[in-house]
């Protein structure tokens, strides 16, 4: 859709995308750097720069950690992309992004798409299989953010399997910007030389790495929006239909695979580093190289410049593997270690096969010294490599030093554990201060008191956090947009009506069809709550088809409500999420009504992060102009609060916390609202809906009040001032040590 097709000029998906949680406006200037310039910045931005240098014609993707920034960067780089005629598509989901690469099937144009993996690759798998089968003419690259290990937000699997089963070349460069950007360039060449799509695997830390590389000039693509293709190519052999699929399958193994092996060898994409301990060696996935070097360094076996005493074979390409190189590296060595993250250990197995075939008897270590599950952090690597050294006993290695290094780290942790004497409390992620999704779960909690708990089919999004304390709500999570679909088996088999959750992100990502349309078709009798906050917030609030214009939730390009209605769902109610009483009532009605069919509650309120950014800027502007502005926030009367914390168990707002009880007669901490409260109103609603306690108050701080207001306030204060209740009697001298931080601040 272009801006001209609607009455009001509106932004396209790509334009609306710009303006996410973090701004990259400054950084995108780096995309203009030319030959010989030094780029200093984030990994994901470097990939974008490398794509421009490689002359891509189109880019696209779906947001998700750790590649959300890539999508954000592309959006903010719209001007630059336009100059080169590069098209940016903000795809509806990863399947859309993968299908976009179809442009390169018939035409010699390069395309790059990105998503979060493994989940994104799962969604994209259908199109990827077809793409890999028919093959490509122009370079086709998928940048996958491998969301694995510490800080990952999804199920833990390797994307490697997709590369193997669909025959997509898998690039895993060393995690420095020179290697990564070089691999983008070489990846496109490899793709074209072998008519095969490639995946560039970037781990979380590599996506966010701040580094430098020497730039080249950006390349103008041969075909682009500035110079469109004029003649369509029709080649029935590029269609995924039998008998051509058989032909394509044969072509993959007889022509494309050998061509790829040759290309990787000729271009020396994998690297061999010599070392003086020649009877041993380490083979490593490129992405793990830096950590390996540091571990060797800590064992006294490598230096900061990467000089290692053990010979290294670095796989910047992990599929296909080059058997000749493996055999060449291993020949003459007694022991080789394969450093490969995750399970199954595909590469380690392949090495065994290669060596067996070549009749090389080198012992191969891998998962025997390194863990089968989990990320290879610095210390995991250190332990594994040390184990290997102890096993292989290379000549000249100081085994006692190796053991000492291990013992030292263990002793340090033990000492720490002894001193701390118990596990440090965790800090699970939760809804932000003032989040509009929180009240929905408060409502479910309150209704549970009446109706008892039911099965809740949760979904992916910020709302997944409801499973964590304090709510503990959500019995299953099966995928993005899959909340309602995942209820279809349990709903008919469960005594109570079940509840499904779906975000607006999940709705457009696939929940619309797999969930709502299917429920309408199958006449499901359950309750669906659609969290409509206006953005894909969990990934840093990117825009959606139903994103609001300037925060006006009724002014959206596409309407979830109308869409649901059009599918024939007749029971649909919209509730402002902060109206807790109404939310409980509506939910009760949905749970108990005799009406059959799907009951949909649209829980609507704008993402607080997005709202606050706008509201704060607006207030600052008003204050600067001397105009009237109001800042609402909540507070708790510390002498009325009895320290039961019921309010916290029904909210979990980061701003609603505890502080030492200022009352010397009480010991339990009192509830307290921090100064970052945004005044969303939930505290007051909970106090009412749950009939909790009278200690909450809302304070509206008025800036630049008008004359009438000021006069009225003065008059009120004059009257009230004469009738205050008597101050507390205190028989003792003031007790020291009960002062709060903010009071001392006020005093200062």
């Amino acid at each position, binding site marked *: 859709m272009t801006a001209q097709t609607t009455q009001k000029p509106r932004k396209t998906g790509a334009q609306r995308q710009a303006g996410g949680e973090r701004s990259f406006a400054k950084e995108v200037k780096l995309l203009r750097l030319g030959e010989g310039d030094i780029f200093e910045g984030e990994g994901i931005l470097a990939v974008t720069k490398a794509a421009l240098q490689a002359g891509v014609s189109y880019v696209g993707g779906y947001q998700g950690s750790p590649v959300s920034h890539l999508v954000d960067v592309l959006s903010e780089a719209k001007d630059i992309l336009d100059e080169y005629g590069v098209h940016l598509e903000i795809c509806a989901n990863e399947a859309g992004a993968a299908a976009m690469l179809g442009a390169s099937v018939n035409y010699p144009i390069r395309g790059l798409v990105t998503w979060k993996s493994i989940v994104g690759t799962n969604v994209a798998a259908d199109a990827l299989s077809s793409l890999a089968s028919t093959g490509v003419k122009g370079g086709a690259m998928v940048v996958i953010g491998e969301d694995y290990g510490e800080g990952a937000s999804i199920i833990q699997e390797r994307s490697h399997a997709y590369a193997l089963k669909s025959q997509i070349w898998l690039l895993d460069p060393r995690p420095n910007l020179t290697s990564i950007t070089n691999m983008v360039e070489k990846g496109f060449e490899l793709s074209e030389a072998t008519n095969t799509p490639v995946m560039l695997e970037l781990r979380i830390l590599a996506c966010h790495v701040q580094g430098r590389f020497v730039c080249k000039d950006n390349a103008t693509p041969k075909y682009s929006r500035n110079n469109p293709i004029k003649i369509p190519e029709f080649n029935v052999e590029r269609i995924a239909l039998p008998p051509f699929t058989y032909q394509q399958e044969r072509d993959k193994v007889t022509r494309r695979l050998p061509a790829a092996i040759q290309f990787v060898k000729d271009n020396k994409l994998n690297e061999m580093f010599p070392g003086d301990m020649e009877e041993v060696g380490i083979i490593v996935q490129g992405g793990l190289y830096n950590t390996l070097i540091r571990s060797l360094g800590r064992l006294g076996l490598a230096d900061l410049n990467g000089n290692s005493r053990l010979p290294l074979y670095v796989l910047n390409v992990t599929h296909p593997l080059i058997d000749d190189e493996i055999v060449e590296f291993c020949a003459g060595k007694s022991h080789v270690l394969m450093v490969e993250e995750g399970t199954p250990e595909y590469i380690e197995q392949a090495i065994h096969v290669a060596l067996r075939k070549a009749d090389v008897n080198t012992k191969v270590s891998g998962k025997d010294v390194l863990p089968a599950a989990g990320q290879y952090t610095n210390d995991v690597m250190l332990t594994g490599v040390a184990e290997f050294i102890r096993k292989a006993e290379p000549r000249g290695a100081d085994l006692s030093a190796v053991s000492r290094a291990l013992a030292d780290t263990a002793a340090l942790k033990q000492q720490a554990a002894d001193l701390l004497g118990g596990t440090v409390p965790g800090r699970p992620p939760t809804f932000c201060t003032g989040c509009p999704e929180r009240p929905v779960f408060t409502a479910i909690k309150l209704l549970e008191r009446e109706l008892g708990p039911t099965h809740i089919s949760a979904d992916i999004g910020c709302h997944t956090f409801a499973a964590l304390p304090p709510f503990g709500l959500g019995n299953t999570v099966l995928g993005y947009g899959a909340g309602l679909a995942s209820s279809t088996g349990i709903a008919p088999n469960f005594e109570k009506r079940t509840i499904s959750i779906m975000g607006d992100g999940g709705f457009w990502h696939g929940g619309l069809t797999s969930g709502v349309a299917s429920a309408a078709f199958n006449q499901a009798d359950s309750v669906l709550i659609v969290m409509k906050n206006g953005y894909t917030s969990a990934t840093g609030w990117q825009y959606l088809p139903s994103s609001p214009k300037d925060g006006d939730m009724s002014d959206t390009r596409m309407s979830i409500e109308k869409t649901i209605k059009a599918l024939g769902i007749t029971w649909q109610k919209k509730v402002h999420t902060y109206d807790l009483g109404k939310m409980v009532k509506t939910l009760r009605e949905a749970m108990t009504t005799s009406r059959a069919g799907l009951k949909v509650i649209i829980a609507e309120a704008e993402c607080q992060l997005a709202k606050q950014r706008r509201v704060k800027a607006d207030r600052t502007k008003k204050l600067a102009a001397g105009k009237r502005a109001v800042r609402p926030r909540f507070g708790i009367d510390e002498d009325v609060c009895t320290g039961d914390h019921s309010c916290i168990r029904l909210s979990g707002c980061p701003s609603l916390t505890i502080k030492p009880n200022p009352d010397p007669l009480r010991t339990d901490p009192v509830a307290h609202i921090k100064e970052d409260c945004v005044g969303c109103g939930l505290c007051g609603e909970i106090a009412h809906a749950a009939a909790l306690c009278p200690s909450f108050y809302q*304070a509206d701080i008025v800036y630049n009040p008008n004359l009438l207001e000021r006069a009225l306030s003065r008059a009120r204060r004059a009257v009230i001032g004469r009738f205050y209740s008597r101050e507390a009697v205190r028989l003792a001298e003031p007790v020291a040590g009960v002062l709060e931080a903010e009071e001392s601040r006020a005093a200062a």
Partner: protein
Amino acid sequence: MSEGLRPVTVLIAAMGGEGGGVLMDWIVRAARSLNLPVQATSVPGVAQRTGATTYYVELLETPRQADDAPEPVMDLYPGVGDIDLMISSELVETARAIERGFVSPTRTTLIASTHRVYSILEKMSMGDARYDGDRIIAAAGKMAKRRIMFDMERAAGRVGCPMNSIILGAIAGSGLLPIAPEVFEEGIRTGGKAVEANLAGFAAGLAYARGEAMEDPPAKDSRPKPPTLNGAALALRARVENEFPAQTHTILLEAAGRVLDYQDPRYAALYLDRLADFLSVDKARADSDYELTREVGRHLALRMTYEDIIRVAQLKTRRSRFERVRREVEAEPGQLVKITEFLKPGVEEYASVLPPFVARRIISWAGKKKSRAAKLQIGMHVRTDTVFGFANLRLVAGLRRVRRRGYRFQQEQKLIEDWLALVREAAAADYALALETTECARLLKGYGDTHARGAENFARIAEAVIRPAIAGHVRDAAKAVRRARDSALADPEGKDLAEVLSEVGAGAAADVSPS
């Protein structure tokens, strides 16, 4: 090959939304401006939403010789015992860093804030589940080679700057990085955001790390100056000081004053009368430090000043309360602040101030149908900055004069007497049991349902544990009571309590059955 040249390693532990990323950028930018090889990365993930998040930086101390010189190989992960500079923006995050081995006595300089941001697990407890902060500070003292620790949140509040600029100042002040303070300052200036505030914060952190700034002076009691004591109050004070030993004065003066403030001199006198028995118990003990008197005194005052609508109205209509609200919401002097109270008293709360015979009828009528009570419970938004709203609450506060005749007052007195009798009996059996029985009053707090649940839990523990214990049927009686009380505070559904009670019950039964 020895380890030789190694990078300076910096690990930043922060929480989502705290500006840890900005801090990392400041360090990276400063290093780049000096042409030092530097690499940095972060693990935000879902932790961006208030969870724990980390940033890791490595840099070299010497500038690169040529622009195209090969870059050193730097790691993306922090290593156990391998961190030169550990930065933590909060005390429990510091503990986590120590736990994970990132603070080493031979290598690590620790820069950490001593303030607490409580985790949800600490906050949602029905009692007190706060992690012991002193333990962390002690551990930090042993584990760090050098430490710069102070309340950076408070410092930031005082300066009026983001906390990360205070931290950056402390980093510069530590002298551990090959980056002069002026270079950081230049970075803040070129960053162009909140430059003045950030520079002020930087200066404060720098001064602190160099030992030029001192810890905050010890806190003082900031509560409002109490009114001059009148005759009744003076007499009450004299009575406490004459009749009770010095060890109890701090608590009892506070407590007796509270009861006087709540009702009247007669009620305060009753308070002291009620303590007489416990004072005798303590007096009869050798080397007594009067713990029972103190503890009963503490809880008795709280029980006698139970929170009814009159009390809430009284607390909310004091001058000092409005001043405190203004302080809390950071209103400028003279600024207009509108205040809305969220009140939702139920039938029982209204009825509690009525005479018992009326109140009982109303409560039983409302209790017959669930919907009746719910309908009568109307949420009110009372604007106490307006004359009408204030007058409403002030009138309710004035009902203090008729409180004695009310239903709840009489009911509470009976419950208090029952509890005191229980403590007395316990004291006759076992002093420790008496203390634990006293402490069970902690269960009675909150309003409405919360209060009812606490009262019910108390009654269950009294029947199932305390009474059998007094009768001598429970082994380790004091411990059993404590366990039951803790379990009642463990979860609002009372699952834990049910388990503990059935266990104790079984034990008690076994104890009395003939063997």
